[in-house]
């Protein structure tokens, strides 16, 4: 109930539509600039407005760190008690850390179906350190959003 009220007060559904559009543009763009930022913003909003999707993070505690190779992009995503907090700072004790060459490579790596996942890994475009299962879960949630946006 509280969440429903907050959705109205905070214009979450309106912001969600805007975030979906941004995500769609990102998916279609050549460079996939700001992919991570756009993805995580959309993810945060969908967690608020979509009860079924929120179920993904009930009782889910996890720390993700995404960094590009030159260090100009650093994004931490922390899931804690049904909430997602995103910050642009390095965090310790991550469950998985993903290092990517550019955001296009990261997008190809995370979203399925993409035929070049292997090449992204093998060409060192994306590497990860830590628990692969956390990455798989994150990729599932991201793919769900991709399908949600592209099937509209």
């Amino acid at each position: 109930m509280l969440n429903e009220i907050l959705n109205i007060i905070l214009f979450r559904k309106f912001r969600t539509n805007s975030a979906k559009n941004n995500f769609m543009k990102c998916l279609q763009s050549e460079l996939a600039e700001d992919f991570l930022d756009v993805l995580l913003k959309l993810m945060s909003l969908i967690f608020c407005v979509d009860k079924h999707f929120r179920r993904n993070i009930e009782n889910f505690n996890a720390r993700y760190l995404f960094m590009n190779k030159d260090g100009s992009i650093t994004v931490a995503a922390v899931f804690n008690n049904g909430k997602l907090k995103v910050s642009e700072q390095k965090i310790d004790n991550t469950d998985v850390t993903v290092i990517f060459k550019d955001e296009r490579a990261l997008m190809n790596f995370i979203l399925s179906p993409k035929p070049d996942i292997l090449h992204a890994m093998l060409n060192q475009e994306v590497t990860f350190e830590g628990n692969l299962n956390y990455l798989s879960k994150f990729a599932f949630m991201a793919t769900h959003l991709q399908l949600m946006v592209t099937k509209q």
Partner: protein
Amino acid sequence: MSQVMLKDIGLKEYTLDNLDILRELRDVHFKSRSEICVERAKYVTEYLREKDNPQDAPVIRRAKTVNYFLSNKSAVFPDNNLIAGTTTSKAMGAPLYPEFFALTIWPELETISTRKSNPQLLSKEEADLLNFEIYPFWMERNVLEVTRKRYNNPQCMKLFEQLIFFVASKAGCISHTVPCYSVVLDKGLNYIIQEAADKESEISKNTPLSDEDQEKLNFYKAVQTVLKGIIDYANNLSRAAIELSKTVSDPVRKKSLEKMAEVCGRVPANPASTFHEAVNSLWISHISIHAENINMAMSPGRLDQILYKYYRKDMDEGRLTIKEAMELVGCLWLKLADNVNMVPETAEELFGGAGTAPAVTLGGVDANGEDAVNDLTYIMLRVTELLKTRDPSMNARYNYEKNSKEYRDRVCEVIANTKAVPAFHNDITDIKTLENQGTLTEHARDYAIIGCVELASSGRSYDASSSVMLNLVAPLELTLYNGKRPATGDEQIGPNTGDPSRFKSFEEFWEAFKGQLKWLIGEAVQLNEYFGKIHQEVVPTPLLSAYFEGPMEKGKDLIFGGALYNSSGATHIGFADTVDSLNAIEKAVFIDKKCTFTELLAALKANFQGYESLHQYLVNKAPKYGTEDPVAIKNSQNLICFLYELYQSRVNYRGGKYRPAYWSMTNHSGQGGLANALPNGRKAGEPFASGITPVSGAAKELTACLKTIGGLDSLCIPGGEALNLKFTTVENESDIEKFGQIIESYFRLGGMQVQFNIMSYETLIDAKNHPEKYPGLMVRVSGYSAYFKDLNDKMKDELIKRTEYNLRTGAAVPFPGFK
């Protein structure tokens, strides 16, 4: 004395036109679509989440978990098969093993049903169950993550996760072995349960109980628990068959269901008394293994030997006809093909199109060294010839001193008619090779094939033959770039073995290469050892142990070294390309001085662009493995010997040695697609040659090719080898005889194994361009069979480009040009 009583060993009067049940089931089989089955994952998770007692010893926890699944497993009858039991709840199911790799399809749960490459159906409800209930439970619990945490994410694991150095299949399974079902068929599970109970009771009398006694007690308790689960499943099948029979009106089907109910009420709990009971008992035993362990190359073994006495008795007593025997064998073949592996999209690149490779082995000699070919051998060959299914993976042992020429030629005829199966195995070298590994002669004579081509003494030897799949091109490139690989950039991966441009001789390069190879094998073996230890803690295997000689006597699970013999297999990808690259370096840089090492490296980096003359020289003038060039023979033999000595010096966590092998599944295509240009003239991204087969187009003359490969010391290849040959056509009796003679000559030269595709370049090109015209075209890949249409494009191209020989002349057929 020959056991062959058939008047026509070809059984030509039996066809799919008069074997109605097989024709119908085959049609159903080819129309079935692969589906993910969540049932096993659901019950295994449910048990561990809600019913598990963490105080139980690991082996007991495992037994209770598997028992829980088996007791609750669906008893379904998806078609009119005469044998009861299914691997999964689906007609063509991919079971999930969350203890291992099942979580790798997590990202794809909503897309796996519709993906372009080999989709696997999964309903929304089942996807939700996996996403919300099952997978979260396993995030920290699967073998890969437990190992990573326990050993602090070691370097060997990072190398494994980069995929281009080696694959450690132990992260994903306890598999690749040949259990022996004879004891279940002959004595029944109740006998084994009682045996375990007696041993438990005997040990309980020891006071005080030592730690070893306690471990034995746990093992014997676990065996009883887990085997009771199988009996529960059989009883559930029996009840379900009765219920179903009440609902069907077709009298034939009704009778069949009633028969299955009767059979499952008796076996596998009790000894089989008929051929039908023996076949169903064996099948339920095979299903049960997949309740515990992954469905990958768990091979039922020498079925013409195991089932023969039941067949003979029924035939002699007039209870069975040849037609009925063929129907039951055909039903078993289709049951063995009722499951597939769960394959994530990424893995399609490396393993796409693979079946589960349950290998069946026919023929050869018996424990006394005498001809073991019998009527059932020919019945199984005929059924194979008629059904033409990918699984079971069929293998024919041939002992040119003991088996008849008629048998040899009949196997050739089946290969010609199926275009691909069975594979041929040389009994004489295989037995010697196993004896050299310390296997007693009578046990070596009872060998069967594991999965692709690997050798195991049936039900005595736990060989985990796919423990390591090492890419030989990786150490080659590490040597070329002094510990780095082009694919992994500037990172120092391997040791510094020197800048090759400063090497003064080929011997220096060879030493450096051996250094990189030794280092990489050390890493691969280390990771296998880590996984082995974690298997012991997390996934012991009491059910599989009950089907082996050794564990019951020792009171020791298979994974702790309970089997009579133990080993770990390490197969190699890119053998021929590596040898040819060594040849090219020796010849071009050090003998002919055609180029300097610096120039060669520059050409490789440029993918030979701007170096066309050098490229032509490397392709056409450098010595090639598969020819009688002395440099090529020396380098191939040196590499085989070096790998053998290196692996054999390593003892695994079960006390067995590592065994090198040369088969590659589809990895030679996947790994080739990811490697840079090589000194043999292979350009970046092109597939490697498969198994132990020469590079396509390199060996122009079949005789020389077979002579050089047969000349490799088989004692140094204890894990087995896959030689792929392609013949244009085998049309008449004279061709069959010639075909048989070629195989015999190769075996007399020492060759271990050979498998064929009987099809032309043009046929395969047409099949690639028009898959709808070839829905059931079966091909041998590198050890196993696949449907051509299921393979990825790279693998299809590799099969197309494989050297095609004219059977009658032995000359390579010119390649017609391919887009």
